Every structure is written in C-alpha cells, then in structure tokens.
C-alpha cells in the first residue's frame, strides 16, 4: 500500500518565529491522524500548510493524485491545487461560517462543489444535496433554508455535507467540534466516525480536545512550540505518553 499523503520536512516561519518545523509523516488511505497541542503549538499552521492555505518555507507535501501519482502540492500550479481542494480534498473549519456561504441555501451550499466540477443538471444537483443533508441528519425540508437559520451543530453538519459531496479522499479538520455543546459534539463525532469508515476517508484532525482524538484518530501527533514531540498510536500516546510535554498534557485533563 502506498501512502495517500507524504509530508517531508515541512517548516513555516513567521519572520524569526517558528510556526512549525521538521514535520514529516506518511498518511495511508483510511487513516485518521490527530494533531494535538496547545494554542500556538503550530498545529493550525501545519494544517494550513498541508491543505495549501499557507505556503511552507521548506519541505514537500506529496499527495497521491488520481492521474499523475505522487505530486508535491507545494510546487504544483495553483489551478491544480485549487482543483484538488474542490475534489479530492475537503476542509472542515472550526467556525462553520468560514466554510459555508451564509447567504446561500443549504442545498446551494452542498451543490456548489458539484457545480464547481461541472454539474449542470439542477434536478441531479438537488437530489444529491438532499441525499447528503439526510446523511448528516438534516431534514430534507430544510434544503432551501439558509445556514443563518440553523443551529451551530446543524451548521457544522452542513459544512461536512458540503465538503464530502464530491467524494474527497482526504479531509482536513480544524477543531471540528470546537465551540459546540457536548451533546452536539457527541452526535457530530459519531457522524464523522461513520462517514470516515463508510467512505474510507483519510483525515487529519487538529484539536486540543484529547477526548475527540481518542474517539476519532488512529494515530496521534503531539506538537509543542512548532515541533513534533511525540507520535504514535492514539491510545498508546494517551495511555503511555513518553515525552514530558505529552505526560503533562494527558495528566492535565479534567476528569468528569
């Protein structure tokens, strides 16, 4: 099996400050990797470098493209990269309003990616949008409502539908459950787990919530001050942390 994503020595600097540095890993099809660390640890910088939102100062992000095999997304042309981000990639933002068009109906939001890749049959687009709303547990009757009329959890589910409708192979998630009530979080996590398994998705999830990674991620990468301090199987890293920082992180979780 070849990796879907091969990250080699990624570094990003903000002037003299380190955003993230010396990050390398392979992600295989179907794998879900969590990146944890506190605010400012470089996890979001890393995610943005991987997803093509930020240009890293060093390193390669090789992606197994459908037509040309392994290709460095850092150096590929912008149209090609943007095409990837509309088709094979998905990005779920922490704040749904960053990932949705708030003045466009739920159906239009889900349909946009289809239209962006050339779908021109209204009926088909709408059917697919409704199908996806159902898969993220949004009632068909809401298809023409705008996201502004949705609750936070529904907005987040709509964002997921919008991202997954084109059948991506790699999903980037930035604190997907951040800011949601715990009950809503649980529902979203369950949904994400189901979709990841059904669609065989690979995913990279940035979060500071260790409970979220324990449930969603197969593997874990712990970051501190822009460096990766520990990696491994999620439960191994959480139950038998080796690095001082990871031990501190794990022991700092409040018990309920």
């Amino acid at each position, binding site marked *: 099996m070849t990796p879907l994503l091969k990250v080699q020595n990624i570094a990003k600097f903000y002037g003299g400050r380190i955003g993230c540095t010396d990050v390398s890993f392979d992600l295989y099809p179907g794998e879900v990797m969590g990146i944890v660390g506190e605010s400012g640890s470089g996890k979001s910088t890393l995610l943005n470098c991987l997803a093509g939102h930020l240009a890293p100062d060093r390193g390669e992000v090789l992606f197994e493209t459908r037509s040309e095999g392994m290709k460095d997304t850092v150096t590929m042309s912008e149209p090609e990269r943007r095409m990837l981000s509309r088709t094979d990639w998905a990005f779920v933002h922490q704040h749904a309003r960053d990932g949705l068009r708030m003045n466009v109906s739920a159906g239009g939001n889900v*349909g946009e990616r289809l239209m962006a890749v050339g779908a021109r*049959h*209204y009926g088909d687009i709408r059917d697919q949008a409704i199908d996806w709303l159902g898969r993220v547990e949004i009632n068909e009757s809401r298809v023409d409502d705008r996201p502004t009329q949705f609750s936070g959890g529904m907005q987040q589910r709509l964002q997921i539908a919008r991202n997954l409708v084109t059948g991506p192979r790699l999903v980037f998630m930035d604190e997907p459950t951040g800011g949601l009530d715990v009950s809503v979080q649980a529902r979203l996590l369950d949904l994400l787990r189901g979709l990841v398994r059904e669609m065989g998705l690979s995913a990279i999830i940035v979060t500071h919530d260790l409970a979220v990674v324990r449930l969603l991620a197969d593997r874990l990468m712990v970051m501190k001050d822009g460096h990766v301090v520990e990696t491994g199987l999620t439960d191994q890293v959480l139950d038998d942390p080796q690095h001082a920082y990871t031990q501190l992180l794990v022991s700092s979780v409040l018990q309920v």
Partner: protein
Amino acid sequence: MSDYNFAYLDEQTKRMIRRAILKGLAIPGYQVPFASREMPMPYGWGTGGVQVSAATLTPDDTMKVIDQGADDTTNAVSIRKFFEKTAGVATTEETAEASVIQTRHRIPEEPLREDQILVYQVPIPEPLRFLEPSEVETRKMHSLEEYGLMHVKLYEDISRHGAIATSYAYPVKVEGRYVMDPSPIPKFDNPKMEMAAIQLFGAGREQRIYAVPPYTQVVSLDFDDYPFEATKADAACDLCGAEDSYLDEVIMDDAGGRMFVCSDTDYCCSRRKAGFVGAKGTAFEEDAA
C-alpha cells in the same frame, strides 16, 4: 467648441481609455481596469459609458443615446447634449443612422451593423460580486476559470422561485472563457449579443472596461434541465403592434388599466411610420406625442 477639448476628455486620457478598450477587445469578456476620471455627472448616471464614448468618437461620427431603450428620457437627452456640446458630433435618434450608440439597459431591436459601436453603461461589472465580496478572490476565480459559483446563483433562483428568476444582468460566458455581466439589459436581449457591431462596456465608479468583438460567441449560463429562455411580456406593443420587441408595461390609471409599449422608442416609431398600428394605437402623425 474652443472651450472644450474634443469630446471633453484630454487626449492622454482618451489614449489611456483606448488602450483599455483594445485590451478588452483582445481578451473578450475580461475586465480591464482603467483610471476612470471624474465626469460632470454623478456616478451611476453613465460615467463609464460616457468615457468610453468620448474615447471612441471621431468628428465624423453620428451619435445616439438611449436609456431603457428610449431616446427621450432625461439621461439620454443629457448625454446626447453633452456630446453635441463637447464634441460637436451629429446626433440622431434613429438606430440605423448612428455610428456610436451609448445605451443604458437595452440593446436596440434593429440588428446592428459592422460599422456601428454599441457602448454600454455598467453599474457593477463583476458578475460574481453578489456571492463573493472579495475582489482578490473574484479575480482569481476569473483567472482560474472557477465559475461554479455563478451556477450557485442560478440554483438559488430555481430553488426559491421554481425557475431562473434572474431577468436582467443575466450572466453570460464569452467565447467559452470569461463569465461576464452584460450590464442590466433584460435577458431578452442576451441572444442579440452575438452581433456584427463592436460592443464596449464602461463602469466608471468601478473603473473597469470590457468588450465583446463582433461575431463573438456569447452563451447565457443555464442548467440542462432549466435551459435559458429569452423572455418578454406575453403581449404585442399596443402602439405599433410589434410582437417581437421587448415591452414596457405602462400603468394607465388606478383601475388596473395598463398598456404594453415597445421599450425601444425608435423601433416603435419607425414601425408606426411604416403604417403598423397596435391595439390601442392610432395612425402615426408627425406631431403626435
């Protein structure tokens, strides 16, 4: 005449605008930025079209100005007088007589010829603007041909109204490349844009010029199952009886009385002169109206 440079603008400004026009013609549908000047009229009254006309006119030209198809509305009259005064060119209300036609919101009914230029006044040149507020992003979308968003707008129309309700400023794709706002002409006029004349578009406030060269492919965007339709009111002109022209609905009284008349006044007049009479019309007299 000695008080004004020919056609109001100084020669350097006209050269700058002509360069923008030529670039626009070279890249059909592409919005060329230009250094729009202050004109002696408010934005929204045709400052872009006036500047393009000024850079286009020669002393031998004959100019026609229409607003919503009419030669006799305030805006049309003012702009026509402006050029009479600042350029000393001949003016006309007859489409066939004109070599340069400045228009707001209409394309004349009579097909234009290769020796004519149609200048549009454009309020908002960016067709993607209402869905994507960032100019940086819309420019990138144009350069990368990412036009999915344009269909989102049409999708929204159908989901809300059961049909594509956009009835003016209906987006088009020019020569298979750039998506373009045709200015707020009724979509009835869209098919006419594949024409023999040169079409120039000027947006003064937004500082953009774009163009469609003669015989260029102009396709109105649509869905396979909701094809584009060039619609008009389902009636004939009550003055001249024309069934093929775009109509204005005129409310006559408080009792629901109304009539439909050609929005293109020259077209209507010339038909009436030729003896056509509509349902509520009377035979044409030179001094009527």
